[in-house]
């Protein structure tokens, strides 16, 4: 790890001049800041980085960077990013999502992206609400959270993204809090460096539709234990904590999905022989 190496690129090199649409106080501002800092530390040219997203507040991030970006359709960012990384293994690929985009409409892709273990970093900004559509419960919302769409709450158990990721084969699992920029920056950088599929859940408050989440800065706490390479132990810790435990929880050793695509015209005669009579 060369996190302290002096990089030729500055934070400004990774930022675009587009003003974010987020509400004042949104946790995603801090996430954007942490990503920029992590990329400075990574030291790779902006044109060699791709930031891919789906739909939602958090998914607006690609255009706020000065990297190559793709703001695709709702829930499919992992699929699009996976195709990109297989076709272009030279690029560093970051995938940006939220709890609705990533765990509800994109839930199936999440499972299979963990299984497939393509070398990329998946960042989910979890605010436990659909913000862009103005406040509906997401898969991580508490069962009794009242809203116009689900009066009195959904009554459904929240989704455990970190445990699901472990059970599905993700190679790196961490949780951070958006307000802790230093910790988030370091975690993102480790996630990018770790081979295979890295999953970072960032607790990122929605101050507009979940004003109660302003309290998160007081309730998050750093994991008191070292990361493990045993998914069962990691899962047990996550299932038994209060959901506000931050830190790197799991580092696996699975071999990343391997493939390579070359840009060549190719000699097709090798394919034609099978057809010849």
């Amino acid at each position, binding site marked *: 790890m060369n996190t302290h190496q002096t990089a030729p690129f500055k934070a400004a090199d990774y930022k675009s001049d*587009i003003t974010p649409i987020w509400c004042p106080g949104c946790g995603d501002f801090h996430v954007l800041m942490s990503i920029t800092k992590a990329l400075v530390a990574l030291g790779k*040219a*902006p*044109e*060699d980085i*791709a*930031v*891919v997203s789906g739909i939602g507040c958090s998914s*607006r991030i*690609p*255009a706020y960077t*000065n*990297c*190559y*970006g*793709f*703001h*695709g*359709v709702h*829930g*499919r960012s992992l*699929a*699009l*990013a*996976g*195709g*990109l*990384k*297989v*076709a*272009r293994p*030279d*690029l560093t690929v970051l995938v940006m999502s939220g709890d609705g985009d990533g765990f509800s409409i994109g839930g*199936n*892709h999440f*499972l*299979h992206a963990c299984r*497939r273990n393509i070398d990329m970093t998946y960042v989910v900004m979890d605010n436990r609400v659909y913000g862009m559509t103005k406040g509906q419960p997401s898969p991580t919302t508490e069962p009794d959270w009242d809203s116009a769409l689900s009066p009195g709450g959904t009554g459904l158990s929240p989704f455990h993204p970190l445990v699901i990721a472990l059970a599905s084969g993700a190679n790196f699992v961490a949780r951070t809090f958006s307000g802790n920029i230093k910790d988030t920056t370091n975690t993102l950088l480790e996630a990018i460096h770790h081979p295979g599929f890295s999953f970072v859940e960032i607790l990122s408050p929605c101050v507009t539709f979940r004003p109660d989440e302003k309290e998160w800065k007081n309730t998050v706490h750093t994991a008191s234990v070292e990361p493990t390479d045993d998914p069962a132990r990691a899962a047990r810790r996550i299932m038994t904590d209060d959901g506000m435990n931050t830190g790197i929880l799991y580092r696996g050793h699975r071999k990343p999905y391997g*493939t*390579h*695509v*070359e*840009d*060549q*015209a*190719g*000699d*097709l005669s*090798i*394919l*034609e022989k099978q*057809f*010849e*009579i």
Partner: protein
Amino acid sequence: MPAAENSYESISLAIIGSGGAGALTAGAIILEAAASSGWYGIMNRSVGPQIRGGEAAALVRLANHRVDCMNKEYDLLIAIDWKNAERFASEMPLAKHGLVLSDPTAGEVPTEIGGLQSNIASVAMKDLAKEIPGGRENMIAVGMAAAIIGLSLESIMDIVTAKLSKKGGEVVEAGRKCIVTGMAQVAKFTDQLKLQNPEKTDAGRWLITGNEAVGYGAVRGGIRFAAAYPITPATEVLEWLAPALSKVGGALVQAEDELSSINMIIGASFGGRASITATSGPGLALMVEALGLATASEVPIVVVDVMRGGPSTGIPTKSEQSDLNIAIHGCHGDAPHIVVAPLSVSDCIFTAQWAVYLAEAMQTAAILLSDQSLGQARVIIDKPANIAFFAKRKIYQGNREETYNRYAITADGISPMAIPGTPGGQYTADGLTHNVRGAPSSTESDHRDQHDKRERKIANFDYGDHWADIGNPDVDAGSDFTILVWGSMAGPTREAIHTLGCEGIKVKLVAMRLLAPFLKQPFLAALKGCDRTLIVEQTHSGQFHNYLRSQCDLPGEIRHFHRPGPHLIGAQEIVDQIRDWKNS
């Protein structure tokens, strides 16, 4: 039409046996032996939904000239058994002179088959196979068919040896004994159904399925990435591409569903690699959302739809042309894109290659509409000519000093595309309405300008004369009728036109390869002077006819023949339509 007594320029045969009996293997051996003996031919299969134990029939047509489709009537039926015959017997009516060879344990010959009682014979294929150690009844059937149509033992054994040698010399020897035994059973029929000698050809010939041809054409066009989710009857496109791509520096990824596969190819193509996926109707329905994304974000992709009976899960193993509507009109919003359709199995190569070229040149989605009748047919074709079409995107070369506008408004509507890794070319591709830079925008002028640009690049592109196959070289001027079709219906229509020509009825063909955009000017030019035009399509609702009517006023008198699957519209039905019209 027999040229000499009991010799034919085309013979159709079916080998029938429940799944696992080896009927399809037997048919494949006969087709390959005929290929190596210089004949042309096509093999299709009629199978039920079961993986094992359902009905299965190998439908083989051999000819001394190129053939694109099956014949309506069969000259020879060999039944190892007639299980579930009620599900497929109506597909294979017997010609007047036709022979039926049936195992005595197979049960009664179904009445739908027809034919003369004197031409039905019993051969104990199963018992004969049992007498040969390692013998199998399908190899007895191969021997019988070979002897009747005039394929030599050597030509059959070359194929059998190639197919079975991996299993050891004993298996090959057992196969040979079965074939010799089968040949000996039909001595009294060997003068009834001889296939005429093949036309001489200098060009090499290939044996290929439509699904393989699509895959090969795509790779020839520059495809180097594919994402795959299995679906009948398209899976073979993907199974062919998987090893093929790895041999030419490409890759295929198996996706978790069709939502994923199409997004994967959008990602790979954004990364600069020409990319493809293949599916059938139910998968295309799932892909429609991302087709809109490819169109709006201007990322070239090719989506192959090997159509089957619909709606919903429909009839997976049977052909239809009923995905035309969703292919052209499926996307929400205004999303101009390309829809092309191959006109034969050999044309699958050209059309797939062309589709890659069009998608890449115009930076948009191209849908290729093949169908089960093309995709799963194995055909002997002339070796395809080399075609110059190769993926060629207009690429932005990069410059850190200037502002790059990914979606710049250009005269031809095509904007230079930066590929990740290019310094100064960074942009965010977006399905949101965007300005020239790619930044989200909801202003009236950005929305309109980008709409205009995307429409312009497709409307003004030079498609050459590939949009359709037109005419009939036999009757260049003054045809009595025109038949207007698209995609796979070109095959039976060509055959119908040949038959009608023999009767002195001159018919012109207009077979459309490019469905969208609709090129009004050349279309109307092709129909100029056509007084009586028959539109033929394999749909229940008449989608093609409705589409044409929505695009222009059709000249002259129009008749419309359409019906759904599962049985393919055959040449004879088209002939009947024209005869009826002539006589009315």
